[in-house]
């Protein structure tokens, strides 16, 4: 069977940064060529991701599948590009472009020459692989590639504090990676497959067939996987590594990490949990997962924002804030898993519709947060350029010194808070609405968190920008503006995208809700990967002489 070539372009999302990374190793001593290769790689990948995304959206939420070496799906390796992967890869590439541009003016040349350029590309390889992979083991590989690059980026310019934090980050992630590896092995032991679509098919068939049960230990496996992704996503009890490490990073790298890396963990939960590892079949895990996620989400967003308000340095406020925002996404997934219990794949129950809605909100919020969080970090980098510090007590008068930066920061901050026309509103309103009738506690917490987010952003605004006391001038404003053009360009790019997400949210909603539908009802995904025979038995056991082929699974209390 020959595959139409457009499908196979998906693999280039991984190949382009990989080749660029290797090429920039060869020209490591030339700053110009390193940067040229880096920028063209990111632009190419971004163009490809955007083109594929627009194409599949025009087809009403297509799923592009590329089989490596033409080996058929459950046996060979597949990379899959659907609405969920597509919108996240695109957002990731935009963020990468902005952070990369910012690094031209903000990164220490010593750090830059120590393999920053290849490492940056390898990080993108890992991120993209994690987003597009269709099988659990390759997910592990993608994670490890991403983590190796992030370990190295974390330690290239290692001062003492940075080294100490690096160990925390490395050890925790090694532990999480090992658990992911074991879980992948156990998944293979239980289901005989590692392909995500095949897993979804097998579990859906078990759910639909009242005579079958999920294997013993399925819940344990689900919880192990959730643990791994919760570490990566910095969920409540497992977030402690994040504020310490992100705070010590050079700001361009910190912006990329803060925007991107936690969302890879959240993405994986969206991809793997609703309906698959949070299954409501007999012996399923959806109760445990739903309750765990709901509690974690509430505590994560609320404690996260309290932590942010209590900080007094811009970097720390932003770093702790990453956690709070992840809580919203977890809330979206929790609502989806919560309402989805008892629904049958392919059925038309309202629970499924709400689940799709909640996942759509979660996806929208993820995209918004990737962009806006990175924009805020990059703004912080420019504030440091002006004042020489990020300590709120020593900042001040930035509004007078640099109106352009103030405007950029204000838009990004208000987007994060979620003032109605801006982008943060779009995701939060959907998540809060979806949770309102089922998990209203989460929705109330979400609203409270929003108010406190406003407080923490106003704290930066009033100390840093509005405060009339001029901080001792570290550098002339005109000098900063003249020497940091690429940094301003990066921030402006992200703020423009954030404005688009707010005012053009219609288009983004369409993609996000496509993604939500595909996650809540995986029939299309399974059919795209496994072919029509993959979905033959999804509605229950083969109809011998039973009158109803669709048997509602047991509704759990």
């Amino acid at each position, binding site marked *: 069977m020959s595959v139409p070539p457009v499908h196979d372009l998906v693999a280039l999302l991984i190949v382009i940064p990989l080749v660029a990374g290797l090429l920039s190793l060869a020209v490591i001593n030339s700053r110009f060529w390193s940067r040229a290769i880096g920028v063209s790689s990111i632009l190419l990948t971004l163009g490809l991701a955007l083109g594929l995304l627009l194409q599949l959206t025009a087809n009403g939420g297509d799923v592009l599948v590329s089989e490596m070496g033409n080996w058929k799906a459950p046996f060979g390796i597949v990379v899959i590009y659907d609405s969920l992967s597509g919108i996240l890869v695109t957002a990731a590439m935009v963020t990468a472009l902005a952070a990369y541009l910012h690094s031209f003016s903000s990164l220490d040349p010593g750090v830059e020459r*120590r393999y920053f350029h290849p490492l940056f590309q390898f990080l993108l390889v890992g991120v993209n692989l994690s987003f597009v992979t269709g099988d659990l083991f390759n997910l592990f590989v993608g994670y490890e590639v991403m983590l190796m690059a992030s370990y190295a980026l974390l330690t290239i*310019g290692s001062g003492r504090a940075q080294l100490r934090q690096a160990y925390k980050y490395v050890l925790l992630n090694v*532990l999480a990676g090992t658990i992911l590896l*074991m879980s992948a092995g156990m998944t293979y*032991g239980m289901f005989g497959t590692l392909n995500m679509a095949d897993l979804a098919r097998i579990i859906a068939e078990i759910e639909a067939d009242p005579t079958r049960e999920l294997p013993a230990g399925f819940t344990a496996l689900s919880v192990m996987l959730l643990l791994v992704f919760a570490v990566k996503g910095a969920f409540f009890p497992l977030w402690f590594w994040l504020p310490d490490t992100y705070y010590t990073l050079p700001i361009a790298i910190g912006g990329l990490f803060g925007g991107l890396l936690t969302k890879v963990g959240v993405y994986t939960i969206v991809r793997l949990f609703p309906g698959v590892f949070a299954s409501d079949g007999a012996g399923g895990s959806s109760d445990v997962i739903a309750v765990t996620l709901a509690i974690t989400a509430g505590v994560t967003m609320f404690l996260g924002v309290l932590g942010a308000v209590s900080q007094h340095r811009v970097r720390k406020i932003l770093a702790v804030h990453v956690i709070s925002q992840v809580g919203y996404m977890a809330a979206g997934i929790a609502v989806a898993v919560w309402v989805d219990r008892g629904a049958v794949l392919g059925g038309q129950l309202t629970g499924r519709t709400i689940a799709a809605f909640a996942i759509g909100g979660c996806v929208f919020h993820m995209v918004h947060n990737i962009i806006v969080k990175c924009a805020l970090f990059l703004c912080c980098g420019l504030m440091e350029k002006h004042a020489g510090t990020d300590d709120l007590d020593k900042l001040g008068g930035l509004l007078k010194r640099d109106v352009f930066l103030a405007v950029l920061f204000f838009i990004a901050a208000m987007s994060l808070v979620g003032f109605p026309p801006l982008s943060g509103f779009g995701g939060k309103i959907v998540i809060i609405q979806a949770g309102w009738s089922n998990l209203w506690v989460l929705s109330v917490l979400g609203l409270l968190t929003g108010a406190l987010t406003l407080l923490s952003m106003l704290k930066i605004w009033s100390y840093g920008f509005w405060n009339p006391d001029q901080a001792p001038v570290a550098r002339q404003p005109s000098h900063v503006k003249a020497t940091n053009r690429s940094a301003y360009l990066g921030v402006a790019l992200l703020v423009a995208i954030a404005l688009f997400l707010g005012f053009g949210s219609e288009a983004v909603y369409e993609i996000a809700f496509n993604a939500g539908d595909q996650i809540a009802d995986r029939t299309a995904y399974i059919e795209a990967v496994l072919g029509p025979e993959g979905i033959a038995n999804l509605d229950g056991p083969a109809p011998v002489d039973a009158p109803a082929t669709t048997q509602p699974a047991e509704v759990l209390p």
Partner: protein
Amino acid sequence: MTLIVSVCVAVIFGTSIYLMLSKELKSVAMGVFLLGHAANLCILAQSGSPLIVGDDGMVESVKRPPILGQGEPAAAPLDLLVDPLPQALILTAIVISFGVMAFLLTLLVKTSRSQGTLDLDELARPAEADDPPVPVLSEDDENRTTHGPQPDRGNDPERGEPA
């Protein structure tokens, strides 16, 4: 057989976590090394027992390597051959854990050279102060950020002006 492997996995995992909780970074590195082995063994156990048990409950023989085309019956080859896929997974995982280990050891060497200690308490003590700036050695004013960690160039063979 599976039970023995499970016990081994538990023991190795326990030892590894114990080592990783140590304050001495060399022990931590050993813990990370063992951790990979525990995971690999766990995956190996997923392929089931390698023993072929006869009808009388006695062990008849062990399964053969998974190479077809040597006269085996095509039906149900996994009753006679070991499952190759977990081994393929382990192979990949070993390579990755080698990479992680190499990185960790490099980090240890760098830490001990630049900080003179491998004890986490020692590393933590002077950095308790909130602000971690280290004097900037670069002459290039443009890239001097007065805040934030700076690279130590103590052992950098490439020290000097940027390209």
